[in-house]
Every structure is written in C-alpha cells, then in structure tokens.
C-alpha cells in the first residue's frame, strides 16, 4: 500500500519543510507575555491555600457557647471570602502557648452571608473546660484578633446531583451548627430543599439558636422545621420530644423513604444514631455523616491494643531539612505529638479524610482508626499514612511534608 496526499514528491518536500514551517509559524507570533489565565484566578478565588481573617464580633449563645464572626483581614491578601456550601467547615489555625494547632469548625452562618464586600463566616464554639483550645479562645478571641484559616472544606453538604430534596438533619449538641447554615440558606432561597432538623440537647439551657431557629421556621413557608429532642428527665418546652433521637421519633416526623439524612454531633450520639438508623433500612447513599473527628478516648476504642495505652514512644520527624526526636503517647495521634513539639506539620480535617497531613511512615507501627481511614489504597501499599488518625504503637520515624 502506498499513500500520497498531494503527490509523492510534494509530500516528501512537505516533510523536509516541516522545521521551516514551524519556524515561520513561531516567527509570526507576538512576543508578549502571557497573563495568568482567568481559570487559574478563579481556582484561587474558590480554593485559596489559606485565608487571613479577623474576628469582627463575638456573641454569647448559651452559657458555654459563643459565635465568632470572621471577615477578611484588611490589608491582607484575602480580599473576599470564598463561597462555600452549607455544612462545610473551616480549619482554623491557632497558636496556643507557642504551639500551632488546627481545629475544624463547621461554618454556622449561611453561604449567602459570605458573599460581597461585607461577607463573613461565623463559627459557633462550645467551651470545653478541660480543653486545650477553647479556654484560650474564650480569653483571647475578641474583635480585632487575627486568625489564619483554611478555605471552606469538607463534604458534608446537600448535593442536588445526589441527595433527595427532603433533608433530615440529625443534630446533637453543637452539631446543630451546619444545620443552622442550611436553614438560613433555605430561607434565603439559596438551597432548594426542605429541611427537617431533629435536634438533640441535654436540656433546654443547652439548645443553641433556639429563638433564631424558631424565627427561621416561621419565615420558611414550611420549608424548615426543627424538633427538639431533650434527654433530661423533665421537659417543659412545648412541642419537643423527650429522650434520644430514636427510629420511632424519626418515623414520626420524617418522610423516611424520600429523604437524605445528615448526621452531625458528638461521638456518643453517632453510635446511638447509627443503631437507630439501621432499623430504618436506609440505603447508604441516603445517610451522610459529618467527619468522625478525633476519637475522644482511643484507649477504650475497640481494636486498640490495650497494652499500648499509657506508653510513650520516640518519634523521629523529618520535615524537609529539619529533624527532631520527640515523645509520642500511644493515646494521642502522631499529629498531636508533632503539634505539642511545635513542628510545622500540615493538617486540616483531623478526621483522616482530607489527606492534608499525608506523610511517609519510614519505620514503626501505628494504629489507624478504621472509621477514619481515608488513605488511598496505594498509600497503604507504599507506606503513607495520615498522622491525624494514626496512633503510635512503637517508636516511629516519619517524613512529613512542610506545611504550605
């Protein structure tokens, strides 16, 4: 078979003329510089590496909870807040007594409130009296305080491509925060869904946003409904349920077969709710759980080797050219050990899912919480792990990428 396009000789000449043809094409092009493409600009606006924020207001919600309002820090590179989806969180970076740590907090304000020149985010935080961070926040976070944050992150949001337009939120304690964002966005018209929230609190005084949620219900033309479920012995609040969020209570209020369920609350609540939801025989795609968070008491976690509890191991950390040997308790994550030593290890979700802290385990053994094992298959194969959900079971040597 012989192929000719324009004739044998012409084709051969055209072949040998290819370099000239290329040179000509290049010579006639302009020599001007190429600006940053709008796609790259938008990528930075939607997903900046970090945000420079400032506290612009603090509001007491309950005796133990405050809402902090955050806006771009004037004069910083953060000119506007990236849009987010109701239910997403911010990973706030805070220096506490010289140690730099991160904490993920659901954004409790609505997406529409982040837009425009006066845009803001709010996070609502419950004080943990023996906690590391929250007492510090209570003492120091006043208007004017500068805060470094991640861009909004996380997968706990209503996705119309996937979820039913009837949403049932199962909230426990401060787990109401993402649903406050959703409720506000529904009322605003930015989230096309009907939202029913079953909100568990220990008693009336512990309910966050009680009056506001009432008001949102009234404004929503039936699109938002909040039912309080109080676990205290005596309940005075009208229209509320007593006890915990059981399958029966869910059936009483929700259109079970046509709803997507979103669960956010403390770990004890997850265990209880998981059991109750199992009784409803929902397909997995209908139930979404907010990231598990750091396990509260790892020593009692099923599968955690009991003999390790109480031990402290030697952790060797390589971050680029720096090397440190630090102590690491078996009952604290590798990430926490590094934070205690003030090493600049990256982190974001602290639940094993975002992969931000992905590091190389050069030697040693760790316990990985199965529910928080967001590693890729090949990462397991090639020795990579997520320090935020891994606990040392021996002396360790790790290579950690420097924080961005």
């Amino acid at each position, binding site marked *: *078979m*012989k*192929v000719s*396009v324009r004739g*044998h000789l012409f*084709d*051969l000449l*055209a*072949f040998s*003329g*290819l*370099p000239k*043809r*290329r040179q000509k*094409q*290049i010579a006639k*092009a*302009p*020599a*001007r*510089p*190429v600006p*940053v*493409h*709008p*796609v*790259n600009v*938008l*990528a*930075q606006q*939607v*997903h900046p590496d970090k945000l420079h924020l400032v506290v612009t207001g603090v509001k007491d919600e309950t005796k133990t909870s405050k809402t902090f309002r955050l806006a771009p820090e004037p004069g910083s590179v953060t000119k*506007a807040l*990236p*849009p987010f*989806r109701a239910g997403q969180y911010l990973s706030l970076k805070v220096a506490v007594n010289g140690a730099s740590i991160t904490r993920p907090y659901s954004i409790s304000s609505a997406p529409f409130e982040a*837009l425009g020149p006066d845009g803001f985010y709010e996070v609502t935080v419950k004080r943990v009296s023996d906690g590391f961070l929250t007492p510090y926040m209570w003492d120091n976070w006043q208007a004017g305080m500068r805060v470094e944050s991640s861009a909004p992150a996380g*997968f706990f949001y209503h*996705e119309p*491509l*996937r979820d039913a337009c009837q949403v049932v939120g199962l909230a426990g304690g401060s787990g109401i925060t993402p649903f406050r964002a959703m409720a506000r966005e529904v009322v605003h018209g930015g989230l096309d869904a009907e939202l029913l929230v079953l909100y568990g609190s220990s008693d009336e005084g512990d309910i966050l946003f009680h009056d506001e949620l009432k008001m949102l219900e009234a404004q929503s033309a039936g699109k938002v409904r909040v039912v309080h479920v109080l676990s205290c012995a005596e309940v005075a609040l009208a229209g509320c349920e007593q006890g915990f969020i059981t399958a029966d209570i869910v059936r009483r209020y929700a259109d079970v077969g046509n709803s997507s369920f979103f669960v956010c609350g403390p770990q004890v609540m997850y265990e209880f709710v998981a059991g109750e939801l199992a009784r409803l025989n929902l*397909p*997995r*795609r209908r139930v979404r759980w907010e990231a598990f968070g750091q396990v509260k008491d790892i020593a009692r976690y099923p599968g955690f080797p009991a003999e390790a509890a109480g031990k402290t191991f030697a952790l060797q950390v390589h971050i680029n*050219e720096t090397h440190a040997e630090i102590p690491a308790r078996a009952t604290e994550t590798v990430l926490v050990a590094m934070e205690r030593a003030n090493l600049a290890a990256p982190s974001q979700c602290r639940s094993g*899912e975002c*992969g931000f802290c*992905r590091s190389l385990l050069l030697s040693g053994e760790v316990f990985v919480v199965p529910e928080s094992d967001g590693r*890729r*298959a*090949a*990462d397991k*194969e*090639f*020795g*990579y792990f997520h320090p935020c959900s891994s606990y040392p079971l021996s002396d360790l040597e790790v290579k950690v*990428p*420097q*924080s*961005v």
Partner: protein
Amino acid sequence: MVDRTIPQQPGRSYDAVVVGAGNGGLGAAAQLAAKGVKVLLLEQHNVPGGFATSFVRGRFEFEGAMHLIADFGPPTNKGSVRKFFEDELDIHLDWFELPEAFRLIQTDPGDELDVTVRYGRDNFIHDIEKALPGSRQIVTDYVDLCLEVVEALTYLGESRGHPDRKVLTGKYANFLKTAPYTVDQVANAMKVPRRVRDIFHALWTYLGVPTDRCSFTVFGGMMGKLIPFSAYIPRNRSHEFTSSLEARIRELGGETQFNTRVDQILVENGQVVGVVTSHGERIATKHVVANASPTLVFNRLIQPQSAVPELARRETNARVDGVAGFTVYLGLDASPRELGLNEYSYLIYANMDTPRLYDAFKTLGVPKATASSCLNNAIPDCSPPGTSIVAITTLFRPDAWKDVRPEDYVAVKNRIASGLIADFEKATGAPLRQHIEQVEVATPQTYARYTGAHGGTIYGYEPEPWDSLIPRMMALTAPKHIQGLEFCGGYAFRCHGYSSSFMSGQTAGLLTLQTLLQERG
C-alpha cells in the same frame, strides 16, 4: 514584570532538580536517579502524579484521570512503557488489560451507531468489518499505516537524530508522506469511507484536537500503539503508578519533596543556576527538568524575566493550549450488571463532526462528546460488591470558563454535570441518577487548583501538523532557549497522553544526563 527578591546564600545543591511530579517529572526523576544522578523532585501538591492521581470519597477510591496507558503491552510483547517501567526501573505492579478498545455510541437521530471494538490488529479489523461489512480492506490499510508510523518513530528514536535517509524513504515512505498532514487530509487521500472514519477516529477526544487539525502522525502513532499493544491500567488507580515511581526514586537515591512549589527558576548568563521554592529556600542546580508548560516556565518561573529570549515567548504564543478537562465521578450503589454497563470504555458522541463538537467546547453548554469509563469492567473489585465507579469526562476550551464568578461556580458545574449524567443515561440506558452514593465534579478550575496548569488544561499544546511530534523532535537539536532547562510532560515533544508524557520524562532525563556527562568531561 518586576524581578522578585532572590534569597541569598544557597544551601542545598543538586545535579538536577525536577519541577513537578506529574507523569513526566516522575519519569525524568526516576531516569536520572537510576543513572546515579543526584536529583531532587519538587511537587507543590502533597501527592505525586499531577492529574495522574486518585481520591477517596466514602467507600470509593476514584481514578483522577487515567483512561488507559498505551504502549504497555502484555509481558510477552512489552511496549516501551512496560520496558522502561519493569526492565529499567524494576517496578512491578498488578496490571489489568482493558476488555475492549471502546464502545462507540453515536446519538444523532438518523446517524446512530453503537459498536464495540477490541484491540489487537485482527480483532480491530474484524470488529469494524462486522459493524460495516465490506470495510475490511480499507481498515486493514489504515491500521497498517498507523503501525508503520509507530515503526518509523521507533526507528527515529533508535537512530538518535541521525536516521538513514534511504531507510526512511524506502521502508517508511508512507510515514514521511503523511507527517505534514492532518488526520482528515490523510483519510481523504486514502478514501476512507465516512462510517469507517466514525469508528476509526473515535478516540480523537484522547488528543482533544478535531481531525481537520490534528496531526496524522500523532493520531496514527496513538492508534498504532494501542491496536497491537492494547491498553492497561494498574490495580489501584493512577496513584499506585505514580506512588510506585516516587518510592522507586527514593530507593534509587533521589530525593522527593511535597508541598513545595517552585516559584522561581534562576538564570544567569543564559544558564540555569538554581530554583527558589515556596518555602523561600534557594536550591542550587545547573539542570532543571520542568514538568510545567513552557507557557508557565517562561512567563512565571524564569528569573530574571529578562533572561527569557524573545523567541521563547513567540514560541509559546504561537502554540495553542490544549483543552481543559471536566469529569463527573460517580460512586454508585448498584453493580455494573444491575446498571446494564458491560464495557469499560464508552465514547458517546452526537456525531463525528469533530470540528463542530470542538466548537461546542468553547461555550458552557453540555458538550455532546464524552469519553467515560466503568472501572469495574476492567478491575472487578475496584469498589465494594454491589457498587460501581463511573467517570464521565468531557472537554472545554479554557476560555469558556473565563467569565464564571466564584458565587456561580457550583451552579455552573452542577448544571453541566447534570446534563452529562442525563446524556449518558439516555445513550446507555443505565439508571445512574437513582444510584448515586458519591459524586464529585472536577472542572478546569479543579485541574488548575491541584496542578497549576495554565487554564486548567489537561493536554499539552495542540499537535497540529506544524507542531506535531516530528517538527518538535526536529527542533530538539536547535539551540536551547536556556541552557540547563529541559521540558517533560504533555507539553514536551512527544505530545500528551499518559504514556507520552511519562516517556518524555525518560527522554528529558537522558538529555540532562548527556549534558551532565559533557560538563564533567
């Protein structure tokens, strides 16, 4: 542009620094490390791979970008990628051969087509003949022309820039005579019937250039490698391919560093002298292999900017950026059988008027050209029993996205994703929507975010005949714009695609090694 401050007092020093751990950068760093070169691979993200990655959502691990690796072949008939990967780098993974080349579904009323074609020369010819009786001879001729292109390219590679003219004009005359032309020009000259073209050119979206502009050599070379060597994917997504390379680079004595963007490539007297990272560190080196596009390297990285020759600027402006990607990743709670999906690779096109389909990539409509995969049909246990992973991919010209505002971004991407899902359902009959357990949508912004790619392009410069593999190869011997700077990846001379970008790393590594050896005398 104002030259930025350069940190003084260089600390670390390397024989070579590779900028970016995409397929090309990994190939280059692995090649250099294998030859004992002191090499540092820098990557801005915290995983290797660039587009060649994976991500986890719930109980699914999604493939980021790979549809297939070409030029790989079975162990008994190794292609150059498998030879480099297994024989030279000694990396051994669990590879899966794709069950078919593609199922092409053409949907325009009156123009419908639904045909499944397998790889392997005889299979390929047989399957087209079965769909279009009487086409055996022309398909055979067309396949053999593609095979000749690959043989000729192999010969050119082996002759290291000094081919014997007699061999070329004797053995590879058809290769020579088609190299200056487009796919359509060659198909016209061969009088390939329209219906045969519809099937034969179906993989045009893998190159992203319509057949009236795409270099025949590049297209024919792709088909000439796929047809005899078939196509493969590794068990645990691209991330396994790229992680195995990253691990091997370290074993071979190379160094790798994540979360480290290269902000500057320092040039003095036309020679690379170092790089500056996003951590503010200055690293000395006389050799940089860039896995970033020349557009980014010459416009953003080279410092001082006055070191960029005018010709380099003209060259990047003369070339046309490739298309940007858009992918809908679906984790479904139904098995492929329940969904009625029996193939791995689905090409769903309204028609094969490729210039018109390409024109639609310039607007934010729902493109009527998608290349999709159902991963479980290649790797049955890639997701839990009773589930499946489907990825629907289409293309856009980057400029289509230029006016999207941050607050509208999610609505725009969801509108397009929704349309793509509906079109896929209509073409295949698979009820995707009611089974979605996990969904993620990657847009040009997503690709730009994770790799820095200019405009979110996933392909290199468009390989029109004047800038195809051959003229790019011929230009390799021309004086360099900057001494000590090589390119690899989809923007390099081999053009884009998984295997091409990976193997361009090998070439860039060897070219760097050659210069290093000359410098050492």
